[in-house]
């Protein structure tokens, strides 16, 4: 036996993230600078989205000492016109880890506001400078905080707090951190550029450390509808989740104490004078329909106990044994446990059963899940082999597993409610692609909502060809919940689907000037790594991506073949223009003539016909 005792310590969340900062994308100065930009910009956009404000986001990166070689300290500031953060929340929101407003089943760019705190933490440990937060909620007063994190205690340390007048609402966060802009610059510029493509309703500016200004003004005036918090979809549920839902759906036997008795008296409309047991029951029977559940339960208990209020205050209900139809209670007067039989034919017995055993299966399904009506609930009951009126509280473990399995397998549920998702929409996506790439051909599609492991998701995709797009495509722009994914491209499911496509089949050959924009929206994106840069190949997601890409590829193929025809016509016209004069020249000498034949109208007639046809076809395709 060892004499040394094992020592157990609990570490704070910030301590944990301090030791494991690689997990959140802060592995080196290059990656950290990029990740910090991302976290702050995404928080700013999320804040505006949720309040329906058209975002104006200003990103500034400045070197503290520009002459020093990279990596070196930079000041990163992100300023927005969002709702701001209430001054009493600021220290906690920016000075602790795992504190935030983003909990619940709906889509947002980040999950818990963890990343921003990680960036602050990283800044502090590399430069030992406080974070500066300026916030105005009302557009009149602005709070300015200088904060440090107490990493061990996961607590904010307020270095300075001032208040001054302002004319604008919004938030500005500024940190000093060690970064490498010479290496991260490209990625950050790409990030800002690609973000503005998928957030066309935002104006984003970026002042880089070299004094360059990148401006991306908004070109869409409307914010897409904000997502709502929703009930779960049956396909995305497991046994543990059902068990928790059943507990929520069960009603407790009310504690019979003075307060409860007073409530029952009041609801029954009884005066203070004592009524006999029979009179009470009579009164209750008449008013039954208007009584709340708790009161009904107490009346039902009284009916079996045959007690009036006086006696009732001297007992505690211990258990309702529905299978054996027994009621156990503790009698304070006699200091002993007693039990009585319940009559199953009594209407009061039914009341108690309902209360203890919870909702019937069909009610449970329609009330607790999204998009299930009574018809579907009954169909499901038949499919799963449960009686529709089966009480949820009576299910054994085995039955719960069976129920969970059936919920996964039943195929007649409607697709998940996508109202918790915020896809950009086909029109803004198309507008963005056209503005950014000025292509000859564009097509976009938004797939209907689907679900993987119960999490709804929507794939939207755009394809564009020609115009200003550079050759060597397809160039793939990947987005997840409006975040551009720039790293780890190789192992991403979107890339996999694109690479699996035989482009030759769609008449795309050689070194095409060709882009694909893929946006996956979900309440939970299945990222492969904590760095959140590549999406795992879940079969459901892969399938939707494939269908979207196939749909667009077919449109592209139609365009390509028309374009091919137009090119052929042009080529043919060029051939005529090249060869017919030669033929004319040779036959003139052969025929012994002096003047060449009048062949010009032959070439002229061919040209305009072909050209006008081409223009028309292209136009139709782009509409």
């Amino acid at each position, binding site marked *: 036996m060892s004499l040394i005792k094992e020592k157990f310590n609990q570490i704070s969340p910030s301590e944990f993230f301090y030791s494991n900062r690689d997990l959140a994308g802060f592995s080196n100065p290059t990656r950290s600078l990029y990740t910090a930009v991302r976290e702050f910009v995404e928080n700013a956009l999320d804040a505006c989205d949720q309040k329906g404000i058209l975002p104006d986001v200003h990103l500034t990166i400045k070197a503290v000492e520009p002459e020093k070689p990279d990596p070196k300290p930079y000041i990163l500031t992100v300023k927005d016109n969002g709702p701001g953060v209430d001054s009493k929340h600021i220290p906690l929101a920016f000075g602790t880890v795992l504190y935030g407003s983003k909990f619940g089943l709906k889509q947002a760019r980040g999950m818990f506001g963890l990343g921003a705190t990680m960036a602050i933490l990283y800044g502090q440990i590399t430069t030992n400078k406080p974070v500066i937060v300026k916030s105005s909620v009302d557009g009149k007063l602005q709070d300015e905080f200088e904060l440090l994190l107490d990493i061990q205690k996961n607590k904010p340390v307020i270095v300075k707090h001032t208040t001054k007048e302002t004319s604008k609402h919004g938030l500005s966060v500024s940190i000093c951190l060690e970064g490498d802009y010479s290496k991260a610059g490209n990625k950050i510029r790409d990030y800002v550029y690609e973000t503005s493509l998928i957030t066309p309703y935002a104006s984003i500016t970026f002042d880089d450390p070299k004094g360059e200004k990148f401006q991306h003004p908004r070109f869409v005036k409307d914010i897409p509808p904000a997502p709502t918090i929703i009930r779960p979809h049956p396909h995305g549920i497991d046994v543990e989740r059902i068990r928790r839902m059943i507990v929520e759906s069960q009603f407790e036997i009310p504690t019979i104490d003075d307060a409860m008795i007073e409530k029952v008296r009041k609801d029954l409309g009884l005066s203070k004078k004592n009524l006999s047991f029979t009179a009470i029951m009579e009164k209750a029977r008449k008013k039954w329909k208007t009584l709340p559940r708790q009161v009904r339960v107490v009346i039902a208990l009284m009916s079996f106990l045959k007690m009036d209020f006086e006696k009732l205050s001297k007992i505690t209900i211990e258990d309702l044994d529905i299978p054996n139809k027994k009621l156990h209670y503790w009698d304070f007067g006699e200091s002993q446990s007693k039990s009585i039989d319940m009559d199953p034919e009594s209407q009061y017995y039914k009341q108690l059963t309902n209360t203890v055993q919870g909702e019937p299966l069909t009610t449970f399904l329609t009330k607790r899940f999204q998009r299930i009506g009574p018809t579907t609930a009954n169909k499901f009951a038949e499919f799963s082999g449960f009686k529709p009126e089966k009480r949820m509280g009576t299910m054994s473990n085995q039955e719960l597993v069976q129920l969970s399995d059936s919920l996964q397998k039943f195929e007649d549920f409607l697709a998940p409610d996508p109202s918790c998702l915020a896809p950009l929409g086909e029109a803004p996506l198309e507008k963005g692609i056209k503005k950014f790439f000025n292509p000859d051909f564009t097509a976009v599609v938004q797939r209907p909502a689907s679900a993987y492991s119960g999490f709804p998701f929507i794939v939207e995709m755009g394809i564009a060809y020609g115009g200003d797009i550079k050759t060597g495509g397809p160039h793939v722009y990947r987005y997840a919940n409006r975040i551009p994914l720039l790293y780890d491209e190789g192992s991403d499911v979107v890339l996999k689907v694109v690479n699996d496509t035989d482009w030759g089949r769609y008449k795309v050959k050689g070194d095409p000037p060709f882009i694909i924009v893929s946006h996956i929206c979900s309440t939970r994106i299945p990222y492969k790594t904590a760095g959140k840069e590549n999406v795992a190949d879940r079969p459901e997601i892969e399938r939707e991506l494939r269908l979207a890409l196939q749909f667009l590829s077919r449109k592209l193929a139609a365009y390509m073949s028309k374009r091919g025809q137009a090119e052929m016509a042009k080529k043919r016209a060029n051939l005529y223009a090249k*060869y017919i004069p*030669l033929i004319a020249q*040779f*036959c003139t000498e*052969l025929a012994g003539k002096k003047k060449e034949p009048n*062949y010009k109208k032959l070439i002229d007639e061919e040209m305009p016909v072909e050209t006008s046809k081409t223009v028309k076809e292209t136009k139709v395709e782009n509409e």
Partner: protein
Amino acid sequence: MKTNKIKERSKKADEKQKSILEMLKSHGAKIYDDLDHGQFPKFSIPSRSVSNIVYDKKLRQYILGNNAALRSSRNSSQLRSFTQLMWLAFFANRLTQEKKSSTLRDVYYSSQAFAIEFEDQSESDNIIVDLEAVTSKPREDFHIFPEERSSIFGDLNIEYTIPGYEGKTMNLSNHPDGYSIGPSLTTAELVDTSAEIVIAIEKGGLFTRFVEEQIDKKFKSIIINTGGQAPRSTRTLLKRLHDEMGLPVIVLTDGDVYGEHIAMVIKSGSANAAHLRELTVPDAKWVGVWATDIEKYKLPTIPMTESDIKRCYDLQKDPRYEDGIWKKELDVFLRLKRKAELEAFSKYGLTNITEKYLPQKLELAKSL
């Protein structure tokens, strides 16, 4: 008397040139009119695909069937070759008018002076055959000649018709190496000869031997070295010697299946030139070396290769090899699976072939 004859001959040559030019002009005029009327010119080319090549027993040669393809300048995939063909007609017209000769390779390079592109010489060669097929005239009529590689020797007087040499005569036994059969010889007038037969021989070595042994005198013959498969100019000359001078033609080849076919091509043409009717000597006779000679003269032999044997089977399907000596010898080759060269007679001494074999064969040829 002689002047008259010369005049007559030059008149004949002039007429031939005139008819070629007329024909080219009429083709050109048709295309000119189409263009002038705003129409895409087109013309029809006899199909030279295998399915359209048939053996005409009456003519005793291969000819093209009735299938023809329309080549239109409207069709963008044909426009290029249409223009190439037009250029070639134009170029042939100039060559003929100026009485200048050209080779296949020459044509290929000349095209570049007119912004006409050919991928390679085989493309331009192909267009030349197209022109032949459209006009049914051999390219030699348009002054386009192959590189010469065959030669002629014997008592034959010719008179040149090419510019600068018109009226000049020559006797073809003046030079013991023989005269190469080039454009000037092919187009020359054949004036007179004391020869009574033409011996076409496959090999240059034997040709030299025959000259040395004075076969021309001993057998009153004109000797022609075909240099393997006879070039078209040689076949033209053979035909003219037969048709114009009334000389019988016999062919002497190696004792193998290729030799047999060399003789057959002289006699009845090749599939490649099925569009032309002026290259065959249907009365020409193959006198050997036969497969049966290999056994009869106990010649040293070489085993046949697989491709030799395959060639035998291929020829068995050719209608010209259906009967007579052609079939018989082919069967024997297949039975022996061995072959012998003309030089094999050297086993019995250098002059054996001229002193023993040739006389016997010439005698035999009379009965063929």
